[in-house]
């Protein structure tokens, strides 16, 4: 037993720990650096790049680390690259760790709900901003346990550097055992030293998990805020007043149906306005299935268009095409005269350039499943994109955010995480987020179909008010017929990717000319009375 303690505290072995940590650090830091590049390559849109990265992964994940160490140490010198034992060990460990780290990164990134990136893209985020602000912060939470594993693995794998003469803990232990013949005391001592090191890694892992836990209560000036600056919002912009449920009277006033004359006058006005969105002969197929065959559509500035049609008729796809979240095979989409997805010279734009274009033409989007950024508070969901994409100052973004939250009746919920809000509240935040930068065109993809019936009303109210107050051009795909009639100037009925009816909302809904439209309206109105009883 005293021999065990003798070896446990022996300076010679403790110095070995330093070298073990050095090799491990080289391996992990290098592995991360290479792993990030590798993950980016694996996720690349360019096939050649991802194939190269995949080949690297197969080779370095599929061969034993010890061979890689010996290769770097003994074979590279023949090619004129002479690395010291420590560097050779670190390099080999880094090369070996990289594919594992890359796969952790890749699975973490892919694990983030696709709606998050769709929302980020729709808000005009470049690929970099999207990764940095939305995907990475969410992915990192799920990746921490795997990184903990990798840290422990790297630490243990560093012992293989003993084969290439790095005087780390394992090599020191085996040599010491050879010269003293105290095999078991030496190896138990070195085992315990390893356990302490890996225990340290586990502690770091648990600390990181705790620090990144969004549901943990937080106070001003905690460590948490230091690590999560994006959550500091509450400290900077205090909610001013609550305004929820205060607008009942105002609302009902707005709900008074316009007279027939007023409607005709508005339609005449709109017809004189410039064209906001023009869809020219777009075609799109998924394999053999045709989604659109030469679809044409014009929407005037300020016009509110309701897209109706059965599921699978192409409503959502059409909306996603308008802001280039989807591509099409031929034809053009123009917003304010800009050819969406193409430069003025006719070149196809990269995802980041498309994002910039969305900002320039001022198009916002609302999603069926809200797609609020899950790791950000309601306020930060709105303020963040204003700062990151539009370059607003902290103060200006906070002020605009509070104003919008007040308008959607959530002035006191700015600090809440999306998961702590009801579906209706989330969609109201999403509306505020979409219009915050001053969007001119808003695309609404079935904004109420994922909501419980009792929440449909609150969201439709907000949209109605927007329509009146903001004078936005809106294209709304919806199943809410009464809402469409109240809010929309025009109704378009889509089936199998074709527009079969297009006309003033009141007309189409009360006297449909196409038998398909008529049947759809009949079926929908019989099933929807309850949902529409506001």
């Amino acid at each position, binding site marked *: 037993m005293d021999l065990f303690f003798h070896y446990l505290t022996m300076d*010679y072995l403790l110095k070995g720990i330093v070298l073990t940590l050095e090799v491990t650090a080289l391996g992990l830091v290098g592995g991360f650096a290479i792993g990030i590049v590798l993950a980016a390559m694996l996720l690349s849109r360019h096939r050649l790049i991802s194939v190269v990265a995949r080949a690297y992964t197969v080779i370095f994940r599929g061969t034993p680390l010890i061979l890689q160490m010996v290769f770097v140490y003994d*074979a590279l010198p023949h090619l004129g690259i002479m690395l010291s034992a420590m560097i050779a060990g670190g390099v080999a460990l880094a090369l070996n760790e990289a594919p594992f780290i890359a796969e952790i990164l890749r699975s973490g990134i892919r694990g983030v709900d696709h709606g998050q990136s769709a929302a980020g893209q729709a808000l005009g985020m470049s690929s970099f901003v999207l990764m940095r602000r939305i995907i990475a912060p969410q992915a990192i939470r799920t990746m921490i346990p795997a990184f903990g594993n990798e840290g422990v693995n790297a630490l243990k794998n560093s012992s293989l550097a003993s*084969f290439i003469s790095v005087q780390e803990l394992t090599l020191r232990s085996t040599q*010491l*055992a*050879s010269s003293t013949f105290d*095999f078991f*005391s030496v190896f138990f001592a070195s085992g315990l030293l390893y356990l302490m090191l890996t225990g340290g890694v586990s502690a770091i892992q648990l600390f990181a998990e705790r620090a990144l836990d969004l549901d943990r209560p937080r106070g001003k000036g905690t460590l948490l805020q230091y690590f999560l600056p994006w959550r500091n919002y509450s400290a900077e912009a205090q909610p001013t007043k609550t305004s929820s449920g205060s607008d009942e009277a105002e609302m009902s006033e707005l709900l008074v149906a316009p007279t027939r004359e007023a409607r005709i006058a508005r339609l005449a006005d709109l017809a004189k306005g410039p064209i906001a969105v023009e869809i020219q002969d777009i075609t799109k197929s998924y394999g053999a299935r045709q989604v659109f065959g030469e679809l044409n559509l014009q929407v005037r500035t300020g016009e509110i268009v309701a897209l109706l049609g059965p599921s699978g008729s192409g409503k959502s796809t059409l909306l996603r095409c308008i802001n280039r979240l989807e591509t099409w095979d031929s034809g053009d989409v123009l917003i304010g005269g800009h050819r969406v997805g193409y430069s003025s010279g006719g070149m196809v734009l990269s995802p980041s350039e498309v994002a910039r274009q969305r900002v320039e033409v001022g198009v916002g989007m609302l999603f069926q499943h809200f797609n609020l950024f899950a790791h950000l508070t309601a306020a930060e969901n709105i303020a963040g994109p204003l700062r990151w994409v539009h370059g607003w100052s902290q103060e200006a973004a906070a002020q605009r955010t509070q104003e919008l939250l007040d308008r959607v009746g959530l002035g006191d919920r700015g600090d809440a995480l999306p998961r702590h809000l009801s579906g209706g509240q989330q969609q109201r935040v999403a509306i505020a987020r979409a219009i915050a930068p001053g969007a001119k065109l808003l695309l609404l993809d079935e904004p109420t179909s994922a909501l419980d019936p009792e929440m449909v009303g609150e969201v439709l109210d907000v949209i109605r008010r927007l329509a009146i107050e903001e004078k936005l051009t809106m294209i709304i795909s919806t199943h809410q017929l009464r809402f469409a009639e109240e809010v929309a100037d025009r109704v378009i009925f889509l089936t199998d990717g074709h527009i079969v009816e297009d006309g003033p909302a009141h007309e189409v809904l009360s006297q449909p000319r196409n038998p398909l439209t008529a049947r759809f309206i009949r079926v929908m109105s019989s099933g929807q009375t309850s949902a529409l009883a506001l």
Partner: protein
Amino acid sequence: MSTVFPKSQRRLLSAAIFASLLPSLPITAHAADLGSSEACQALQTKYPQFKGKTLVDAINPHTPGYEALDPKDPSKYIGLDIDLAESLGSCLGFKVTYKPVAFAALLPTLQSGQADLIISDIYATKERAKAADFITYSKVFDGVLVAKGNPKKITGINLSLCGTTAAENTGFVEVPLVQNLGPQCKAAGKPVPQLQLYDNNASCIQAILAGRADTYINDVNTVDQAVKAYPDKLSKATAVTLPYHIGIGVSKTNPELRDAIVLALTEIQKSGLQLELMKKWGLDQGAIEAPTIISVK
């Protein structure tokens, strides 16, 4: 948590090691004298390229007596091969640093240029001389390490090995010899010998102590050291084998270092230093051999 080695014996062993270290002072003085001797001065003039340099010596430091950590100060290596390397350095004017690697990695380390020489109780065989040039410095016989009382009656690399298990290090010259016994054992109607391959001396000794292997055949001095450490558990079987030549390995791309070592080693042997060193380390079973170059193209 126990040690394999009873405390009383450890004390004995420590005493033995301590005693063996006692004469080291005069020897060190002797080594210093060597460098200032006329012959060595002449060599330093003849080979100025090594003077003031630091050469890297690849070792497999698991063989007490030849090379192992100093249990008293584990930051140092000690043993005959270490003293020899220091003496060569002293005579030719270079310093030595040591690079510990697995036995099988000694030659690859030299070939890749990660080391300048190998002084690590390695037999200079024709096979190995294809990978490096060797300068012999000692002739030694193999010893046969077995469990106390030699229960399997092993007498060497012969038919007595049939049906037993031998522990050896990867790359040892004994490995093919044991393998070649297979057909002979079969012809004699006996089971073939099994081989367990390790990467250092200590693992082979542990294999016998744990009952996993029946024998470990290596140079007789190493076997003696093991028996000294575990007198209750191990013994040396009597064996008659051919002599082997222990050599210093030098890269084939560095013939000047090889030639300089031959000359310096001759001086060391002439001065009586090598004999003193072998006595100091208890390697009394080995004979000094005049430096001979073994090189195969």
